[in-house]
């Protein structure tokens, strides 16, 4: 075996180590809590579905057995509609493929494609939080950074004219990242120079961002003729991130860009010395100082990169889907992203998987509401329970009698709270 391939192998081994560590027991140690949290969330969700259904109460009035039966059928209908709404109807997919009709195939696959569309901003926002955690920073300001990013992308999208798409689209997209980076850099700078805690400052920066975008949309960036409605002009076609199929299928290139960025974040964090700088400062700032790193500099870089990823989440929504900016831009991506990063163990691959899960849940919930008349809020409750169980793993460990794991890099979360100083 030559040197090169040996190095490759070692790198692969390290990758495995980073995600799961090599032994089976260790893999289980990493994924057991998120997995069991999801299962528990779904079970509690099922109980809630049954407990909030009038049909179930009526059935219980008739007889106990009837009540139990109806409960299960209600839960089944709800979760089945959620499944078909988010993944697709398996029968229809099989039929579509056997018929060979391209249009029918596309529309049968639409639910799963739509889930990926929903997952896209989650991936960017989740990466933002995960990168922050790895650098010892608790970025709660993703929502605000997302709004600023969206505003910047929108502005470049409609104000710059006459560029070919190959330049205009990346330009608008990166403008979004830059806006978010600036918004993240400010609390990073404050923390590094004054010690002001980023948790407080990012929350405050959120409020500033919301009001700032409101003002922009109803003032300098307002759409001519909108009559004072807070909405921006429509972006140039050259700035749009292309969608692959005709409406109503919204699946777009942004999903693959998100995957690309997940890889990039992984590469940066675990393969480069800059990433090791960030992780060292994030895990043990005193040892970082001892090793000659600048905690101040790396804190600022960490916050700016995290903010930049958050800005991209806003940009991708504008450029691929909305094509203009209004206030209802985000359904709380910035806040859900904290959950995503935690469930994904602050690892880019974990973030991608948990984002797809959340996207799927979100997408399925809509369908569930239509078919089973279950309020969409049930998904919020399930998400909240999953997050709670992941953030407080002691609950899951007690519930399922799991052993306390050895200290691992997940403790980054804790140092994030303490400000790592």
């Amino acid at each position, binding site marked *: 075996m030559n040197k090169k391939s040996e190095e490759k192998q*070692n*790198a692969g081994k390290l990758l495995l*180590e980073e995600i799961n*560590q090599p032994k089976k027991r260790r893999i289980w140690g990493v994924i057991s809590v998120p997995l069991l949290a999801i299962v528990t969330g779904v079970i509690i969700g099922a109980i809630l579905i049954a407990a909030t259904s009038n049909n179930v109460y009526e059935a219980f009035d008739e007889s106990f057995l009837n009540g139990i039966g109806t409960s299960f059928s209600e839960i089944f209908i709800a979760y089945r509609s959620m499944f078909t709404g988010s993944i697709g109807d398996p029968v229809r997919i099989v039929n579509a493929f056997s018929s060979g009709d391209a249009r029918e195939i596309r529309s049968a696959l639409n639910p799963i494609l739509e889930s990926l569309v929903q997952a896209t901003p989650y991936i960017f926002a989740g990466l933002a939080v995960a990168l922050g955690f790895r650098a010892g920073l608790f970025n709660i300001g993703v929502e605000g950074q997302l709004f600023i990013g969206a505003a910047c992308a929108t502005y470049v999208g409609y104000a710059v004219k006459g560029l070919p798409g190959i330049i205009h689209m990346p330009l608008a997209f990166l403008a979004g990242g830059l806006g978010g980076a600036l918004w993240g850099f400010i609390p990073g700078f404050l923390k590094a120079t004054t010690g002001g805690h980023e948790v407080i400052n990012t929350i405050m920066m959120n409020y500033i961002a919301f009001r700032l975008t409101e003002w922009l949309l109803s003032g300098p960036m307002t759409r001519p003729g909108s009559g004072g409605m807070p909405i921006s002009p429509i972006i140039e076609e050259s700035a749009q991130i292309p969608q692959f199929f005709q409406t109503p299928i919204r699946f777009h290139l942004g999903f693959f860009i998100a995957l690309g960025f997940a890889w990039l974040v992984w590469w940066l964090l675990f*393969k480069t010395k800059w990433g090791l700088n960030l992780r060292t400062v994030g*895990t043990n700032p005193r*040892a970082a100082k001892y090793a000659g790193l600048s905690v101040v500099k790396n804190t600022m870089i960490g916050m700016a990169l995290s903010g930049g990823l958050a800005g991209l989440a806003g940009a991708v929504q504008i450029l691929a889907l909305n094509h203009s900016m209004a206030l209802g831009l985000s359904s709380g991506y910035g806040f859900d992203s904290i959950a995503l990063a935690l469930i994904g163990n602050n690892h880019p691959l974990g973030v991608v998987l948990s984002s797809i899960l959340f996207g799927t849940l979100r997408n399925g919930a809509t369908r569930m509401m239509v078919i089973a008349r279950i309020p969409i809020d049930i998904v919020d409750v399930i998400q909240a329970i999953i997050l709670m169980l992941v953030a407080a793993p002691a609950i899951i460990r007690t519930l399922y009698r799991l052993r306390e794991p050895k*200290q691992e*890099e997940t403790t980054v979360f804790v140092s994030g709270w303490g400000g790592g100083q």
Partner: protein
Amino acid sequence: MTPILQLKGITKQFPGVLANDHIDLILNKDLILNKGEVLALLGENGAGKSTLMNILYGLYQPDEGEILINGKKILIESPTDAIKTGIGMVHQHFMLIPVFTVTENVMLGEESLRFGDFLDRQAAANRILDISQTYNLQVNPNDLVKDLPVGVQQRVEIIKLLFREAEILIFDEPTAVLTPQEADELFGIMRTLSEQGKSIIFITHKLREVLAIADRIMVIRRGKVVGETLPENADKNSLAAMMVGRAVSLEVEKTEKERGDLVLSIDNMVVADKFQNIVVDHVSLDVHEGEIVGIAGVQGNGQTELVGAVTGLKKPAEGKITLLGEDITKANPRKITEAGSAHVPEDRQADGLVLPFPVAENLVLCTYYQEPFSKGLVLQYGKILDNANQLIEDFDIRTPDALTPVSNLSGGNQQKVIIARELSRPIKFLIASQPTRGLDVGSIEYIHKRIVQKRDEGCAVLLVSSELDEIMELSDRIAVMYRGETIADFPNKGVTKEQVGLMMAGVLPEDALTEKEEPLVEPEL
């Protein structure tokens, strides 16, 4: 005569836990403590001493076996139970409230003193005075604990136990925080206690102390009793061999060596702490090639800040530091490292290691940004792993593999990771701060050998240690720090340990070096 305490067939297993956290304890021989006896429990870190004592103190429940007090079987389920049955423990870290007076600390939790709903301080103070006279434990009941020197604080801890009428006193590594003089005083107190009929279990890994104070010695290794002996039949070497399981050379082999050129020069340096108190006060110090300069001193006399300034972690307020002819007074740690300096930090877990990171990454913590470990931006994990495997072998680091998080290693092996990382670089100056604190005899022996080896290669070494034995054995020259000043700086020749100990307590060298008898001064901290 029935022994006052008997531990019979005690076992405690920690299934599934990595061995270096909690060793399975299987007491193959009964532990017997007679009335009025000082029993020393000797063993390395992680040998099972603490587990055994935690069982006795009610913090753990044994899987098997029984505890007999005065021949009667009893159950101890909590520290409260232990105190009720007359067992008291002086912890390594004191359990005192600094802003309370001695009386308040002693009566804390002792409900019987309530007079109506009021605390009866006077009665408690009187009892404290009684106890202090009976056992020769001088304290003033109305002093605030925070104003007391460490040695006196420890006395308060002992009084607390006597106040609760403890018959069996457990001392857990009690000398770790004391000067040699204070330690001798403590031994005097322990002697008085045992003469008055109290029974004592003394936990330690220091051989000198065991020989000085114990009536009987029990040695534990890997959760088993490996020997029992009397101090008159034992010496340091035989005890060390029993403890480690092989012959250990306690004396460091060191040849005379001419010192070479000047490497580090500290000139009139002043360092202030974050409250702007001066903690290093106009210190001047030179370290030459091929010499080990030991800085002796009780902890907290400015050594930490001195090291901080020399390694670039702290900026001195005044003065100048020169390393190999280069002014490094304001240089950052990385520049100092690149100039050929290595630093073994005092707090290895907080400063020296990133615990959740694998051994391999910790082994390149100071150099990963350089060739060959990085090429451009990209880390060369192949090279980093090669380096790790080489150092693991060279420095005998016991780890499952290079990818194991360093937090899973034992304290001795964690320190070896740091030693390996720092000494494997081409260095001209080494600063080692408390390099063997809390380590077992085997690791201490190894690390001492490595430090002397570096000196023999011509490296200049600055050794900071509160362990006087270590300073005496390794140093070519000794500087004593007291309240931020170097009050003495002399070659390590013809000086006794007692004399250096006196200087550590603030006695000026001219007095200390003429002093023959035990001094009557109260050591101050």
